[in-house]
């Protein structure tokens, strides 16, 4: 009897070892697949023997030529545009989202349920639909083409109240009795927000700033609409997209790689540093629906 037990024990251990090995193999293969494009893009950005697409990964001649070419192109301007947009949007959007979500989480006013349902329905309309008119309105205001940056900021920030959901979910988890205790202690509603809730909301504030900051780096559609072919008003996504159109790709492919590296590095580093908060926000948001 002892022997069979021993055998079972061995079997258990062996099967666990096998399944772990399989998992390691899968994870290693996945890591290779996930990293491959990024390794390629970095290596290709240092390739100087040709500027078009090639069928090998390791450059034959290495050099900084692509980065130098970037420096001499409009890329600087695009980068600055995007950075300014991202910074301003991160600040303003965070304020608006926090106002919205805190209010909907804590106040019980007459229109609250109706307002939330209304915004849910609004969200079912594809945002792209409104681009045409927003473009025309911005054009009338003189905020397109070379002036696209303030125009984009205005549009991004103005509609950001719709994205209250994740942070409202977070505020809902803070006990209401904290608000009540503070109000009994003599705080006004505004003081409750600034002295009690905001200090406790650090994770969600960081999450909101992070997502608001990352958003403009990737926006492509509306930014292209608003800049409308004027290089001075483009963000990196619009400018670099043009480099990969069929008539440009053979001259600009490696420059695109270099630009991609320059764009990705700061954003990725910021993201990796604040990953913890991002994960909290994302999982909280999904659980809350």
């Amino acid at each position: 009897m002892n022997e069979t037990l021993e055998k079972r024990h061995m079997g258990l251990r062996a099967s666990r070892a096998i399944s772990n090995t399989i998992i390691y193999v899968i994870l290693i293969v996945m890591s290779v697949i996930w990293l491959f494009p990024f390794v390629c893009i970095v290596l290709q950005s240092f390739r100087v023997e040709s500027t078009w697409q090639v069928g090998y990964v390791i450059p034959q001649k290495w050099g900084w030529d692509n980065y130098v070419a970037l420096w001499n192109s409009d890329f600087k301007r695009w980068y600055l545009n995007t950075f300014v947009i991202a910074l301003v949007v991160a600040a303003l959007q965070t304020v608006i989202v926090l106002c919205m979500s805190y209010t909907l989480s804590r106040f019980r006013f007459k229109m609250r349920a109706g307002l939330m349902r209304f915004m849910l329905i609004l969200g079912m309309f594809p945002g792209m639909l409104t681009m045409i008119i927003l473009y025309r309105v911005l054009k009338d205001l003189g905020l397109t083409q070379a002036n696209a940056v303030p125009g984009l900021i205005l549009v991004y920030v103005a509609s950001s109240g719709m994205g209250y959901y994740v942070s409202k979910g977070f505020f809902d988890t803070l006990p209401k009795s904290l608000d009540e205790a503070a109000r009994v202690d003599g705080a006004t509603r505004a003081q409750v927000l600034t002295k009690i809730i905001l200090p406790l909301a650090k994770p969600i504030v960081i999450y909101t700033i992070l997502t608001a900051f990352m958003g403009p780096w990737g926006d492509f559609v509306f930014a292209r609409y608003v800049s409308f072919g004027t290089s001075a008003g483009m963000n990196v996504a619009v400018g670099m997209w043009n480099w990969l159109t069929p008539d440009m790709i053979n001259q600009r492919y490696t420059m695109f790689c270099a630009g991609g590296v320059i764009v990705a590095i700061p954003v990725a580093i910021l993201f990796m540093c604040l990953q913890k908060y991002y994960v909290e926000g994302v999982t909280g948001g999904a659980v809350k629906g």
Partner: protein
Amino acid sequence: MKKYSDLEFLRLSKSEKFFYKLASFFTSIPRAVARFFVGIWNFIVKKIFGTIASEIADVFLTFKNGDWKTRGSYLVMGLGLIARGQVLRGLLFLLFEIVFIFYMITTGGYWMSMLGTLGRVGPHEEYNEILDAYTTVYGDNSFKILLYGVLTIFFIVAFIYTWRLNIKQSKIAQEYEEHGRKLKSGRDDLRALVDEQFYKTLLALPLLGILIFTVMPIVFMILVAFTNYDGTHDGFNNALFTWVGWKNFGTMLSWEGGGNVYSAAFGEVLTWTLIWAFFATFTNYFLGMFVAMMINKKGIRFKKGWRTILVLTIAIPQFISLLYVSKMFAKNGIINGLLLNWGWIDQAIDFWGSTAHNALLPRIMVIVVNIWIGIPYLMLIATGILMNIPADLYESSRIDGANAWQQYTKITLPYMLFITGPYLLTSFTGNMNNFNVIYLLTGGAPVNPAASSAAGSVGYTDLLITWLFKITTGAGAQYYMASVIGILVFVVIAVISLIVYNVLPSIKNEEDFQ
């Protein structure tokens, strides 16, 4: 259908239980839909009409019982409040009234009068005596008429609401005076804005932004679907545009004479959009969960390292990663280059397809690349939820004799589905509108020859949303068709959400983990 009691149900065999549940699921759909429409009907009849009726009645009653101060407020807004000492509020009402009247007289009236036709005089040639030649003279501007007409309607509604509010407050002020209670002063009002009325302060700016930059454009674009606004009828430079009724919907859904290009394309694009949304959502969901479970498994090391590698696709802006991947798989891209070098293939594979007969490959490719983009996100979510599943559920199931697979199907999966049900819905609708992945990867290609003559040359991987975009940027710029598509997307999403919200909870009760 026969209804079983709980005890009867328990006696059914496994397959009988399954079919009973299936049948009750489908029989509950019509009821849910009916309930929804009854709800809407009740909302319209009772809530809206009821409210309007009682508001009107109250307006008359207030006038009847009002003193001269209250009655005066009917004409001069804020009079009753100013006369009773609530100067700040009263002045604000008065100011609003003055601004409104001034606006209506100067411009608002013009926009409203033109709204019915969207302009009478278009651009035309006129003899110019000074130049002694015919020159183009521009007339009305349909676009502005529609835009400012909508704005003016918003303004009028706001005015009516404010007028009503003014009467209500005059009435309250009068009652307070009669009962000898103290009215709130302007200072009290201001103080309340950081205390019990703080929500008004907080919401003012966000809601104003949403109203102007979301609600108004949507209303405008819905109206555009009923006009002939396009590149050649731009409303000012080329020609005016005007109302055409339901014609555009007829073209899209082909009740205006069958066999047109739009309806054929619409059917295909909608089908692919739904297929795409389904696969994009569920492949990511299950694979992401699977990856999360692998990484979280006891005994697997470098958990943080694996996660960090995967999360790279979230950290790097999509336009870089997607554009780059799209080029990697191009005919002369790096993947084909490597495969050729290694001798695995002797001809470059056309991953993104260029002709109709290999349309399946690009469709599979976008789903596969979407997995690459989407798994990390789902992995993060699944990790968070998996760690929240109470460990004693697993312990007790192990004592009950469940193996790993049974634990997954009986505990992990139901728990995940229950918690993430609403998330799946938003993820599905989000994927229906997933512009970035499609546009950056394929741009909609390969072009569908059957439907290509429809504006914007639709392709096999085009979603409704990318089609919409193509139409607005295409040669004809048929904005009215774009907005028809937008409205139809809304309808599809609304219907799906409605069914899921109404039907799911009833069958989810049994999996209640709360």
